[in-house]
């Protein structure tokens, strides 16, 4: 069975400072991992994905994530936060053996202070 834990429900950063969103996963097989962002009252947008290629994955808007199998982690980072980064972020795992369904973490709300 697959599962995802996002270690922080809320993260508050100042504009221009680094952002770190932590995610740990559990999977029986080789998973695919994703980060999605949801701005207030909007849909879900894919930030980046890991699909068993390079362990350091670069996404849109300056975000990147590193897959660490030994730690079962897939943390999301950005060197310098922007006001427009304020949103809800979801770490997601998918396994073909699970019928291709996505299992979502509980989400991390990011607040960016000016």
């Amino acid at each position, binding site marked *: 069975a697959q599962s995802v834990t996002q270690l922080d429900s809320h993260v508050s950063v100042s504009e221009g400072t680094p952002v770190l969103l932590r995610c740990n996963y559990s999977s029986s097989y080789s998973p695919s991992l*994703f980060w999605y962002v949801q701005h207030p009252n*909007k849909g879900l947008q894919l930030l980046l994905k890991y699909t068993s290629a390079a362990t350091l994955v670069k996404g849109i808007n300056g975000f990147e994530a590193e897959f660490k199998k030994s730690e079962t982690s897939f943390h999301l980072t950005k060197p310098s936060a922007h006001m427009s980064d304020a949103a809800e972020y979801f770490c997601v795992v*998918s396994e073909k053996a699970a*019928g291709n*369904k*996505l*299992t*979502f973490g509980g*989400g991390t*709300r990011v607040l960016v202070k000016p």
Partner: protein
Amino acid sequence: DTAVSQTPKYLVTQMGNDKSIKCEQNLGHDTMYWYKQDSKKFLKIMFSYNNKELIINETVPNRFSPKSPDKAHLNLHINSLELGDSAVYFCASSQEGVFNYGYTFGSGTRLTVV
């Protein structure tokens, strides 16, 4: 040009009513999904269809009945609506065999049961 479109965007209805949410994708994907996002932002899969066949049904009350007339459409019909059905419902699609490429989500339907 919208890849995955849902209608309506907002739906307010009384308890006990029957309502439907429609979803269409123009990406040529084989698989479509319904996800439910509750008031705490938690997202969970409800159903998955592949080429009009049901492949995932995640312990959803049988008041919820998905219908897929063709692989580009997946509608969700809900009978005898209850207060607890209030949520945002997201439709999504993906291509069979490339599950690890991520999904495309619709913009969501906010259902409010009063």
